[in-house]
């Protein structure tokens, strides 16, 4: 192997080592709380939510239970999900027609299921835990 190739491989390796962690800084496995920075002016501590542990203990397999998609008529598209988007990409700060505003979308989704299944937190302080 020529010296040039060796240097090339070395530089490539170095670049990969430097870039890899930057590409994978954060994923749903590491999530401990729902980021509230999508809100114009957050006034509560971020809601606790350990993404993967939560869905394991709650036994939710279907990603689209939360990461849903709708067609133009407001009908839910089965077998497709939207985890590549954040809720705020589709839910604005305020209600728009049948699309609930961001805060309402979170509350209906989280609290709605907890109430329906009669388990999981439902009072403000249990989700928006002060540190």
């Amino acid at each position: 192997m020529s010296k040039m190739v060796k240097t090339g491989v070395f530089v490539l390796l170095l670049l990969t080592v430097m870039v890899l962690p930057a590409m994978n800084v954060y994923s749903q496995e590491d999530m401990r709380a729902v980021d509230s920075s999508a809100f114009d002016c957050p006034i509560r501590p971020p809601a606790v939510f350990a993404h993967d542990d939560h869905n394991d203990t709650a036994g939710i397999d279907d990603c689209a239970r939360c990461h849903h998609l709708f067609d133009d008529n407001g009908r839910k598209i089965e077998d497709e999900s939207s985890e590549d988007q954040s809720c705020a990409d589709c839910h604005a700060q305020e209600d728009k027609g049948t699309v609930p505003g961001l805060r309402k979308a979170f509350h209906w989704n989280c609290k709605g299921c907890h109430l329906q299944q009669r388990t999981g937190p439902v009072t403000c302080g249990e989700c928006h835990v002060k540190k």
Partner: protein
Amino acid sequence: MTSLYAFVAGPLAWAAFLFFFGGLCYRLLSMLRQVRQSEPFIFSYMSLRYSLRSILHWLIPFFAMGWRRNPILTGVTFIFHISLIAAPVFIVSHVVLWDEAWNLSWWTLPDAVVDVMTLVVVAACLFFALRRVLRPEVRFVSDASDYLLLVLTAAPFVTGFLAYHQWPAGPWMTIAHMVSGELLLALIPFTRLRHMLSGWLTRAYIGSEFGAVRHARDW
């Protein structure tokens, strides 16, 4: 726990609002019936103009002679009642719940302002209680029910404050807050707290009698 919350936020909340509004309507009708039976001539001089004139004059702090006689009590009464109404109506936490249940939402006060109003209400309740203990002429006309009404009124504010600040953590303080708020609402028409309705009618009656019959001022 979640089932208990569902009960307190559902059927119990419905019952509380039913007792509150139903009770106030019942009170209004029974007051009118009583007047018609014992002193029907009062209706002959009731006047909207003199009623409103009296109510408006009495709504201004320290304007009426009755308000000036006891300036400290008057000051406390005014900021107590303003905070008592404004805090629960304009607190974010309540508006969030109205929005999610009925798609209704309105203007809110910052949490820090509501915190101060809450402390004002609790401090005013303590002031009213102390006054009953310390002033002989007030102690003489006070009984246990007066103190119970103050506890009933302060309870949703104390528990709401503690729940908001998460002392202690967990759902129980919020549950206690909801139950105490619902108890207060349901009991308002059936205790002396019904003055929130009858107070306006009393001013309307006195205002009309002074304006239309005696041609004098009642403030």
